[in-house]
């Protein structure tokens, strides 16, 4: 699904987080929001998700204005920085949550939910771990569970906030590969936030570089390397 971001402005108290951000994200693309801390990248992601509201500007999914649509009805999957798994639920219950809270007439049967959980556990390569609690998993495993949970309702859009921030280098590389593969296989439009240049360039089709609440450049990695749009991009990227 295409995502159109039209002139978003957001201030927190007196500090401005976004100063008129516009982006056109193609259907099926894998986009990185890259920038130093405080550049507004997480705020932008949260506004796209519907977890924050912008002061002005619009967000469109597939041409439809969703600016005032609550987060529950945006059909997005969100992976949180520290995973935010429900600590009192098992892995299977975590993954099934999005399905079990559906209205009775839309909700799949118990057997269908269990089958979907198994399917998702296989997709993120954690078969047989459904009975564990989050506290019994490693960081990389928690990340995979968070991903499976976000995909349970078959969202069209996947949003990830610093998805690999808390992991060591080896696990990070493995997960990166897995995430890219899942993105391609499921046919999602994905946006992830990162402050790691190498990660953004290795994983994304298109990279949006943010600084002080503005987009400095939005282009493919190769293009950014060859023709940085500003001094900031040149310093930050090269």
């Amino acid at each position, binding site marked *: 699904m295409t995502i159109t971001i039209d002139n978003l402005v957001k201030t927190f108290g007196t500090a401005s987080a976004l100063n008129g951000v516009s982006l056109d994200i193609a259907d099926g693309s894998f986009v990185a929001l890259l920038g130093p801390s405080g550049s507004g990248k997480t705020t932008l992601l949260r506004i796209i*998700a519907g*977890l924050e509201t912008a002061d002005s500007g619009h967000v469109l999914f597939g041409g439809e204005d969703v600016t005032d649509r609550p*987060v*529950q*009805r945006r059909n*997005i*999957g*969100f992976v*949180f920085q*520290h995973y*935010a*798994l*429900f*600590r*009192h639920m098992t892995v299977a219950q975590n993954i099934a*949550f*999005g399905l079990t*809270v*559906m209205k009775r007439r839309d909700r799949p049967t118990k057997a269908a939910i269990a089958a979907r959980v198994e399917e998702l556990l296989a997709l993120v390569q954690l078969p047989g771990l459904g009975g564990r*609690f*989050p*506290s019994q998993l490693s960081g990389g495993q928690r990340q995979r569970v968070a991903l499976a*949970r*976000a995909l*349970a*309702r078959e969202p069209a859009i996947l949003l990830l906030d610093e998805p690999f921030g808390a992991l060591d280098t080896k696990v990070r590389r493995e997960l990166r590969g897995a995430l890219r593969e899942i993105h391609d296989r499921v046919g999602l439009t994905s946006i992830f936030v990162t402050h790691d240049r190498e990660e953004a360039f290795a994983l994304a089709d298109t990279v949006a570089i943010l600084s002080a609440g503005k987009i400095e450049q939005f282009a493919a990695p190769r293009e950014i390397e060859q023709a940085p749009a500003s001094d900031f991009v040149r310093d930050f990227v090269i």
Partner: protein
Amino acid sequence: MRSATTESRSIRALLIAIALLWLALIILLPLLAVFTQALDKGLGTFWAAIVEPDALAAIRLTLLTAIIVVPVNCVFGMCAAWAIAKHDFRGRDLLTTLIDLPFSVSPVVAGLMFVLLFGANGWFGPWLIAHGVRIMFAVPAIVIATAFVTFPYVARELIPLMSAQGKAEEEAALTLGAGFFQTFWHVTLPNIRWGLLYGVLLTNARAMGEFGAVSVVSGHIRGLTNTMPLHVEVLYNEYNFVGAFAVASLLALLALVTLAAKSLLEWRHRDSIAATGH
């Protein structure tokens, strides 16, 4: 062997001995004294003092007060804690301070505040009397005063817990399509249930034991507006020591039972307590 970060064995033993001795002197000995005094003239006298009509009325009133106050303060405490811990709004600090007010105000002053509000010469007193609503020196005043005194316990127990847990799990539930009440029921409540239980037990213990505020507003009408603590005082002032200590020991027993129930629950659910990080 002695590890680098602990005190020497003799210092440790001394510290433990001081703690235990103090505990015995301040808590166990008086508790023991209450029960010995109560049973001084035998079980028969003890029992007679408890089933005496005024004592039974006091027990009933205390239980009634607790049954009304505990759920009400549980709900309001949860709302307040939720608002303070998970939201940022103007006046949050003021609300936090106000919640602590009943802790810092003497219970007697709390009782007098309600006399000023609802008494015959109070702000609302004349209007209430004209409309035949009786609050002062009756059950409503006792319930209101107890609710005031016990208000902070649930909120105070939950605010640090909810602040530490943050709102990431709630946000995750929202992105997964859960509504407000589903999020509260499936995510927030399970994460705070142990803190909530502890707050409820403290509220209950204090609600049943409150003396000062209730003493001011109750009017001390025997068999009608005397709660258990007030009844104990009345009996004691009448030199009816066996009766006083019998009711007192029952009150102490109620507190011990709630503590035992809490320990039992914690022991039975120790795995899930560890998982939710209490």
